[in-house]
């Protein structure tokens, strides 16, 4: 009885401690020999990420004596997992985030700011390519993250299908649609374009890119403008590939991961694919050789709509940061320094497919391919950073899910016209205003 009483007392004390621990915790170095690292899914599958990162983290352990516990998390869950970790205070030490979320996550105050002293510990600002530093947090604050991988969207096209049809890669959106129509033959199960229709992050990215091409502003003075005529035009440009032009296989509305898209494209079931720069690796794994596809920037309508911008990609990429609750801050920074070192960048980027974020890594001839040149050119000349404001992540979830639903409706044969798009975007806009 006595023992049980003590156990009960202990339980209630732990409970009370647990409750009061919510939100406290500052980060210290009380556990210097271990780290937990949440990596994002960069490779073809979570297993592949584990296989690539595993040996590198062993190298890190040999070098520093710090054992890293790795968990690779898929994109559909990553943001929710990070939010849950933020609210409970029970999270990893080091975490990868989509770079577009930087300002939103920074606003939670859960991440170690990279002030000058801190960033010096991971090699200093000068180590990173300047454009990659544009999406690491809100303007005027020390960044909450540093870049880990660079990415950009490109239009991949199947050279053989294009040559057989006597086509050249499209220079404008109108050409893209015309080519896609010529290359669509549902009887042969061949379509002009393949899309990841069930992915809300993809939906949000394209809503931004095509919205900008049509002259839209996502936010004005902190107020959302998701339902402006320009945004409607932008979302329509994307969704219409399935709804109006019918150059996308309706099954794509169920595609949630890259794997489905890469498989269709590699098998010649789709002639074009808009995807980020990591794709060549995945295509090779699906049996498509480097010479069989080409990459050009995603085209804009010609002439550009009034106020439109020639945006072929957002400044995409993966950032890495340290949770304030870490018990091993020094170790966490060492791990980030290690992963962003030129040598590791060469290894990780060649195996997983993104672009290095440090200048030195590009000396390697592996990064001198025509595709990588195209992507670097897109990043330098035809890309914009998503707004670095706290509400950015809500834009992605709200508008991304709206786009996803519109694609699902189009696939199921429901009408998707300007009015449908406008009313759905207006609903998303209202949710943003009433929710935040």
């Amino acid at each position, binding site marked *: 009885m006595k023992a049980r009483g003590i156990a009960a007392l202990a339980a209630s004390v732990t409970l009370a401690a647990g409750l009061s621990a919510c939100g406290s915790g500052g980060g210290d170095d009380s556990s210097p020999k271990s780290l937990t690292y949440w990596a994002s899914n960069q490779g073809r599958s979570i297993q592949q990420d584990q296989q690539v990162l595993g040996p590198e983290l062993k190298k890190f352990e040999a070098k520093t004596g710090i054992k890293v516990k790795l968990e690779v998390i898929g994109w559909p869950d990553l943001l929710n997992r990070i939010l849950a970790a933020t609210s409970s205070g029970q999270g990893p030490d080091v975490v990868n985030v989509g770079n577009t979320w930087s300002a939103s996550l920074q606003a939670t105050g859960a991440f170690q700011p990279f002030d000058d002293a801190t960033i010096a510990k991971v090699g200093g600002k000068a180590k990173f390519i300047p454009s990659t530093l544009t999406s690491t947090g809100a303007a005027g604050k020390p960044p909450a993250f540093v870049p880990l991988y660079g990415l950009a969207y490109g239009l991949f096209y199947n050279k053989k299908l294009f040559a057989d049809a006597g086509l050249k890669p499209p220079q404008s959106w109108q050409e893209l649609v015309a080519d896609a129509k010529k290359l669509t033959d549902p009887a042969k199960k061949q379509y002009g374009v393949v899309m990841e229709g069930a992915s809300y992050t993809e939906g949000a990215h394209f809503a931004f890119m095509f919205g900008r091409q049509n002259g839209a502003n996502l936010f004005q003075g902190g107020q959302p403008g998701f339902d402006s005529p320009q945004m409607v035009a932008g979302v329509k440009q994307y969704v219409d590939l399935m709804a109006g032009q019918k150059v996308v296989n309706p*099954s794509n509305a169920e595609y949630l991961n890259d794997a489905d898209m890469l498989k269709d494209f590699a098998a010649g079931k789709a002639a074009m694919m808009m995807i980020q720069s990591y794709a060549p690796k995945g295509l090779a794994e699906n049996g498509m050789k480097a010479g069989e596809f080409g990459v050009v920037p995603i085209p804009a309508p010609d002439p550009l709509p009034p106020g439109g911008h020639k945006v072929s990609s957002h400044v995409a990429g993966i950032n890495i940061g340290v949770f304030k609750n870490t018990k091993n801050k020094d170790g966490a920074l060492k791990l980030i320094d290690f992963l962003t070192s030129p040598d590791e960048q060469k290894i990780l980027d060649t195996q997983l497919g993104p672009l290095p974020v440090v200048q030195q890594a590009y000396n390697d001839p592996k990064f001198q391919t025509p595709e990588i040149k195209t992507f670097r050119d897109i990043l330098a000349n035809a890309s914009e950073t998503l707004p670095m404001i706290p509400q950015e*992540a809500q834009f992605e979830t709200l508008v991304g899910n709206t786009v996803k639903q519109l694609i699902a409706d189009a696939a199921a044969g429901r009408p998707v016209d300007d009015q449908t798009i406008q009313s759905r975007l207006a609903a998303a806009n209202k949710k943003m205003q009433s929710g935040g």
Partner: protein
Amino acid sequence: MSRTVTAPGEAPSRAPGAPAHRVRRPRRALLPYLLVLPALIAELAIHVIPMLVGAWMSLLHLTQFFIRNWTAAPYGGLTNYRVAVDTNGPVAKDLIHSFLITVAVTVLVVALSWMFGLAAAVFLEKPFRGRGVLRTLFLVPYALPVFTAVITWRFMFQRDNGMVNALLSDELHLAHGHPFWLLGGNSFVAIVVVNVWRLWPFAFLTLMAGLQSIPGDLYEAAAIDGAGFARRLRSVTLPLLRPVNRVLLLVLFLWTFNDFNTAYVLFEQPPADADMISIHIYNASFLTWNFGLGSAMSVLLLAFLLVVTLGYLGAGRLRSRHA
């Protein structure tokens, strides 16, 4: 407090006024409370405190700026509730839509599960060869882990490579082309089918146990009076199963109405036609990162379930008193 309460039945065994007992008495009286204490603490920790915390959170503007330290979130009064029930706004419209879908799914799932369960239990009552095998087979869906079972359904419902379309369109030619099951209107069918498949074995198991307690001579007497199968079912089986049914229907209702796992594994983010309410609330909070709004919706849901459950139990008690 412990001094004034004595466990019933203890007093006579004690010699009144014996000094040794006077010392022991308070400790003995304390014992039941100490034994209940761990359960009480567990109940508080698992049910009551989180519920109260949820209710408190529903009054806060709990956005991304405060989720790390939500004690600092500004007090918003009933703002979240106003957003959740303002039928002019998209948030409340979606919530009501999701509520109606959930009610429809629940009614169908409870009715179908109960009917299948009853039919199977009645037909497996008489011993015959292979009865044990059938019983075991029927219980398989209930014994499988949710994730394994539902992810299999998800693969089967896929448009291009799913077994459902292969069977319905390619083999039996019952459907034209390949319809979607995980998107659009058919997703409602999908969620009902998977839920019934998962839940009816429980109805079967419970009703089978209920049937065991009906004395066989009642059936014999009914048979002598010339009652056929349907009459015996209506006049003997169903009335005597009433106490079992009362609990069974309530449990099936609560499980289906509150179910998160099935819809989550099947759709990840359910389409509008299969938007079960618990996952709707979860997604709604993550859409705008306003967890206060999500909590307010949860409190409303809790209130609804409480009213239904109390009303149902109260009505049942009245009926059994009159019976």
